[in-house]
């Protein structure tokens, strides 16, 4: 029995905003990773990212509709990406009028510092960032778009109520969908679930650079999950939203069903904020629990978290092999970059390709497998065989979330 079914998909991804286009470009092995265009990054050590196109007209329209200044929308891009995807998901599920007041389950990334505000606070003589200059800024604040404001705006654009905002870092995109599925199973009629994030700004890129998590390789193959010579991840951005409802409700209104959500589980590593558990113990617990709750289906594809960092990839492969055995594995991050809080949602959309086109999207650029990651890796598009797809998302700090999806019946 499923927790819920997916009847609407809305996307804003670096490889396009249509599920069909995203699927076909992933199957073709395309990568969206390219030199950064959002800001002058020529002196940064990492100078590539997977970027979504925003148009000045879209920004101006959003500014007019929200009352938020354009500069803030350009810098903290997740609201625009989220608006685009949330609207599209509702339109996809309900070509007529959407239902009144669906629930909303959000995965959100970190607030973005507006650096000109921080510079304005700086007292060069005292070499201090203090409060003395705050009155000059008035009510402006170094964070122009607090997460609460983003949640309110996404609720407004979708007419949603009963908002829950999950901030479990890179696990948030899968977690918000899993928790939404539970809400449907507990009786809510319709829940809009999705995540939006962009860390493609100077502080976002800079902090990940300082952590040593980013690949400094130039070019479209900068992020190479499971590759023997991988050196780190690449930041991406985007949003993916899904309309969730019960199978009975979807059937009664003749809705298209993309997939059933068969199982969901979350766990904590309880190990370290700086590194995953060496055996992936927490990841194993989440994967096993989600799979067992789904009824132990035959898994034909695992959409891995697969960041392309040296530490993460072998641990994840070990966890998958331990729980599910030698099943086909791929990571979308080689093509889409790491969209952080939105990653799980974007990659969930990519994994729907197994059901919509019957094909497994491959890991881009995987031409030299790390022996420590040995498994059945999908390196070229191949036919999907199985009853279910697993989606792993693991957050910085040890938060794990796993979804099990089944083909629509």
């Amino acid at each position, binding site marked *: 029995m499923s927790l819920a079914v997916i009847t609407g998909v809305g996307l804003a991804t670096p490889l396009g905003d249509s599920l069909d286009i995203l699927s076909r470009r992933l199957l073709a092995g395309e990568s969206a990773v390219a030199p950064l265009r959002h800001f002058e990054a020529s002196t940064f050590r990492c100078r590539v990212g997977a970027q979504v196109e925003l148009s000045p007209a879209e920004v101006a329209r959003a500014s007019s509709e929200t009352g938020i200044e354009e500069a803030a929308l350009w810098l903290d891009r997740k609201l625009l990406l989220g608006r685009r995807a949330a609207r599209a998901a509702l339109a996809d599920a309900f070509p007529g009028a959407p239902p009144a007041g669906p629930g909303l389950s959000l995965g959100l990334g970190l607030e973005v510092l507006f650096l000109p505000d921080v510079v304005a606070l700086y007292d060069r003589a005292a070499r201090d960032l203090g*409060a003395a200059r705050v009155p000059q800024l008035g009510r402006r604040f170094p964070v122009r778009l607090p997460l609460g404001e983003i949640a309110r705006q996404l609720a407004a654009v979708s007419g949603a109520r009963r908002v829950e905002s999950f901030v479990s*870092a890179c696990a948030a995109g899968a977690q918000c969908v899993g928790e939404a599925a539970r809400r449907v199973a507990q009786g809510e009629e319709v829940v809009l679930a999705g995540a939006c994030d962009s860390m493609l700004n100077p502080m976002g890129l800079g902090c990940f650079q300082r952590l040593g998590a980013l690949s400094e390789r130039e070019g479209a193959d900068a992020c190479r999950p499971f590759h023997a010579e991988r050196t780190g991840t690449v930041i991406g951005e985007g949003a993916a939203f899904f309309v969730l409802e019960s199978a009975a409700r979807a059937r009664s209104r003749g809705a298209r069903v993309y997939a059933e959500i068969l199982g969901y589980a979350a766990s904590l590593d309880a190990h370290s904020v700086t590194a995953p558990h060496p055996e992936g113990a927490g990841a194993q617990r989440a994967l096993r629990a989600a799979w067992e709750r789904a009824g132990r289906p035959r898994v034909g594809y695992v959409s891995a978290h697969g960041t392309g960092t040296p530490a993460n990839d072998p641990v994840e492969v070990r966890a998958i092999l331990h729980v599910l055995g030698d099943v086909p594995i791929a990571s979308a991050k080689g093509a889409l970059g790491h969209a952080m809080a939105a990653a799980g949602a974007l990659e969930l959309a990519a994994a729907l390709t197994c059901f919509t086109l019957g094909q497994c999207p491959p890991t881009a650029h995987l031409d030299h497998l790390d022996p420590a990651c040995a498994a059945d890796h999908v390196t070229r598009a191949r036919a999907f065989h199985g009853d279910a797809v697993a989606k792993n998302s693991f957050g910085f700090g040890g938060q794990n979330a796993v979804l099990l999806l089944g083909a629509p019946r």
Partner: protein
Amino acid sequence: MMRVHVAAVGVACARGVGGASLLLGDAPLAACAPPLPQFASLLVGRAPLADAGEYVPQRKALKLMSRASQLAIAATGEALRSGPWDAREEAGLFLSVGMSGGEIRDLAGMIEASTTPEGELDLAALGARGLDKVNPLLSFHVLNNMPLCHVSITYGLGGPHAALYGEDAAAGLQAAHHAAATVGGGEGPWALAGGAESPLNTIALALQHGHRAPLAEGAASVVFAREDHAAPDPGLVVWRGLVHAGDLPSALSALRLPPRADLYCLTAGHPSPAQLPADHQPLEALLGDTGAASGALLLARGAALLGQPGGPGLALLVAPCDGAWLVAALQREES
């Protein structure tokens, strides 16, 4: 769903760091708030906790923690003092968290190296020199989920989880709902619901004139346990649920609770007062505006009052949400 008890409470707030008894009594914030040296003229609620050193195995772990993370660890440590609380690998953890931690002063070196002599931001200088001035550990202070991760690591909690973002009490009540549902649904014998926030930073204090109550930091952790779990000191307080409602009668109806005389109504976040009982008590009067921690502190205060002899029999915890209310109910179980 199995019935779920509130089995232990820990708090770290302006009233102190300890158990539920700290939240008894109606003394206003002004009676317990020590001044903050750089803002001596402001009434703010600072928790009397230098750091969370006594709660962590190694002090060096503190370098990775924001103030909110340390408050969460202290509150959880106090809650877990009540017993061994075994099976921690399965125990759930649900926290409401606020804006990123971290102190903006930590960016002074980066800004110094990234601005022109005219005081303009120079992105080329930021990339070439400024970022090298940033503490590599900054990310661990600013990521919103870190209080949850540090609590998980410090106490070995490995079960279901969620870090729920909120600016007021709603997220804390949602965290409690998730914890109770996890335990009631059989996912582990116990779970912890809590919240933590430390808004006493330079910018928030400088902007305090925009707030309706004095800013205060705080954290609370509440252990929810199954009836059949051998808790060392099982509480008599039972979780009765969480509903959206616009007034108390409809909230009681949705919760399937009859109206009763010994009802206590505690609010946070300034829900519309028109439909509230005249004797409702705003948490802000007791503890200040504790932001994302206020839902957990509501829960802790409600449990504390219900647990004392002669206390109320039913506590309704009310927070504004979507133009209406989010209402959680705790009930004293007559044994």
